[in-house]
């Protein structure tokens, strides 16, 4: 894992002091809320329905045990004893007092963490694959790139007042576990003639106009990625729309100019940028890479496990993924217990996972965009012990990628922009489909819920997506089918008129029943939908 050197640490420390100063000026009445707002937003502090919300960055989703433990301590000390893991590989605290915020940032800084650029119209936390470094099929570990870009984007002098927020993802496998093409810029590492570089996708995003990012360059060598991104961002900063915040994301610029024209402008800017010496030397990427070099795995380990306990076997089949190193496994920890709030974890659960990471996973863990956690380096021989501890803490749900592994945004329970409550709906669905064999029968089925059109819950990318809308003052839920955030990325289609909360649960049951009737050998829900199209599903729901 990356460790800060004195440069990184002093920047984060200075930021804490700067924010402490700004907060004191606000509390003393020297700054008005209007003046303070842009400053607090640059530090991830939002004012929500009931309290301040603080969003902490988890760069590329990687944490050490010590960092995780600190997140739990903060939840216990400053919040109501829990934290919320989000689709952006961030952690949100929902019940923060303004006067405490500088102290929280100071505590985070002691474990090399921060909330810098977790909101505002700047380059946000860089996301990556939760299996980075441990999946067998990756070209290279994408995280050194992500760390290089984290540093490059931190307080970028030219790109801090962009037309709108800007999200970058970096992946390196054919399997896209990060919704890479739904980011403003997505990088996919590839290898060409023995050199590593990136395919660059630009103009993806969700919100009210969802778009899957098109490819704009098939290879940028690693030692030119910074100057190429500067070119992409400069074109956007200059020409992205600023007249209407709903049309301000880069996806609209790329769409309005056309991909070819955007590409042309970027290439022209890049030809200029690459003469300016903006790229760190290869030694810098090598320096960062050294931190991510595989840990010291043991060899000759036992590769089989005792499956005699059926509950354990069920969990293994669902939650454990193949590791590149023989004798090791990747453990997915579900934050979607039956009837629970997706992505929420209590301070005690966070502390337990920190301990498990230290004891069993070479002191490393990951957070995923599906609001779950991962222990990336677990010995097969330790799986049973881990499962028992998770089970005692209510963390042994076996539902990865199943219908109850629901993504949901905070919705009207917390969010000031919401039209509808996402959490109670997620809870109802989780109860309705709780039976383990039914879930297993339905197979991979990604349900994603957003409480308004901003799409924080990725509903456009759900195999089944639900969007909360306001219909004459009453909460109403629109259903969409056929979206995907994976390598086969697509945007879901709305089925038709919306439903009440119970109505949408019934409708989802109907579409899943139709799938079970109609599916062909080996088809997931998404495949059946793609083969049959919307019509039969619509009939099943409304007919």
């Amino acid at each position, binding site marked *: 894992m990356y460790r800060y050197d004195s440069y990184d640490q002093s920047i984060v420390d200075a930021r804490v002091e700067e924010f402490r100063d700004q907060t004191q000026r606000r509390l003393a009445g020297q700054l008005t809320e209007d003046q303070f707002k842009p400053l607090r937003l640059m530090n991830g502090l939002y004012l929500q329905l009931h309290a301040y919300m603080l969003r902490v960055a988890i760069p590329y989703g990687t944490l050490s045990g010590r960092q995780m433990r600190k997140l739990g301590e903060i939840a216990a000390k400053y919040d109501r004893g829990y934290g919320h893991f989000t689709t952006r590989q961030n952690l949100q605290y929902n019940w923060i007092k303004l006067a405490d915020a500088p102290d929280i940032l100071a505590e985070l800084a002691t474990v090399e963490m921060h909330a810098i650029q977790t909101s505002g119209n700047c380059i946000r936390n860089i996301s990556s694959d939760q299996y980075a470094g441990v999946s067998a099929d990756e070209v290279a570990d994408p995280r050194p790139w992500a760390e290089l870009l984290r540093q490059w984007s931190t307080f970028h002098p*030219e790109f801090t007042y962009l037309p709108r927020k800007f999200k970058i993802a970096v992946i390196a496998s054919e399997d896209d576990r990060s919704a890479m093409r739904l980011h403003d810029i997505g990088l996919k590492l590839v290898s060409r003639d023995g050199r590593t570089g990136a395919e660059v996708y630009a103009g993806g995003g969700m919100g009210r106009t969802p778009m899957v990012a098109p490819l704009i360059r098939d290879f940028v060598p690693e030692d030119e990625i910074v100057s190429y991104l500067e070119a992409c961002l400069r074109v956007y900063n200059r020409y992205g729309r600023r007249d209407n915040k709903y049309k301000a994301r880069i996806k609209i610029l790329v769409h309005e100019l056309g991909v070819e024209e955007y590409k042309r402008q970027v290439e022209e800017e890049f030809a200029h940028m690459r003469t300016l010496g*903006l790229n760190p030397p290869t*030694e810098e990427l090598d320096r960062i890479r050294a931190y991510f070099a595989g840990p010291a795995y043991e060899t000759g380990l036992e590769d089989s496990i005792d499956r005699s306990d059926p509950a354990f076997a069920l969990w293994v089949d669902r939650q454990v993924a193949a590791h590149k190193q023989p004798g090791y496994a990747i453990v997915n920890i579900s934050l979607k217990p039956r009837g629970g709030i997706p992505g929420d974890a209590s301070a005690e659960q966070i502390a337990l996972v920190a301990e498990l990471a230290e004891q069993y996973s070479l002191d490393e863990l990951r957070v995923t965009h599906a609001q779950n956690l991962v222990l990336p380096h677990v010995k097969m021989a330790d799986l049973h012990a881990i499962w028992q501890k998770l089970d005692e803490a209510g963390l042994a749900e076996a539902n990865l990628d199943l219908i109850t592994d629901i993504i949901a945004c905070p919705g009207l329970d917390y969010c000031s922009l919401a039209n509808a409550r996402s959490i109670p709906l997620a809870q109802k669905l989780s109860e309705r489909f709780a039976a383990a064999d039914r879930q297993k029968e339905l197979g991979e089925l990604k349900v994603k819920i957003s409480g308004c059109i901003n799409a924080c819950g990725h509903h456009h990318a759900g195999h089944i997506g639900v969007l909360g809308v306001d219909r004459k003052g009453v909460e109403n839920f629109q259903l969409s089918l056929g979206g995907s955030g994976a390598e086969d990325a697509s945007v879901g289609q709305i089925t038709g008129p919306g439903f009440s909360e119970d109505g949408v649960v019934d409708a989802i049951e109907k579409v899943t029943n139709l799938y079970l009737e109609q599916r062909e050998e080996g088809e997931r829900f998404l495949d059946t939908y793609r083969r049959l199209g919307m019509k039969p599903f619509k009939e099943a729901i409304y007919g």
Partner: protein
Amino acid sequence: MVEFLSFREGETGQEPAVTVESFTGQSNSTAVRIEAGEDARELLPHLDRLSLVEVNFPAFGDGRGYSAARILREAGYQGELRAVGDVLVDQIVAMRRCGFDSFRPDKALDDAAVERALHRYDDVYQKTIDGRRPIWAKRHPETVNG
């Protein structure tokens, strides 16, 4: 309170700045003002006769002027580059990094706040045209000169 802030040696431009349109259309002016959304590159053929470029920030959140400034400096402009309009104290450092060397904010700035902002961060991650050595250069002094 600070109404005008300059980091230049000696005189600063006094002449009223004209619009880009009148400047490029045969004006003898040596001072021009760029509005957000205007293309700074239109000035590139005329840089040698310019002594002051003002870049207007209609709202602090409109970041187009940062690109305009960097473009001018990257093209070798040596004259005064002044940020005017809704310029806040928390933006001065980033603006300096993009090449601005004078500031005339709509609302005067607090002296102490300016001092604090200027000395808050010792080091920077990015290379720009301001001549500061980025952190990556300091980390690799053998490979990165200058």
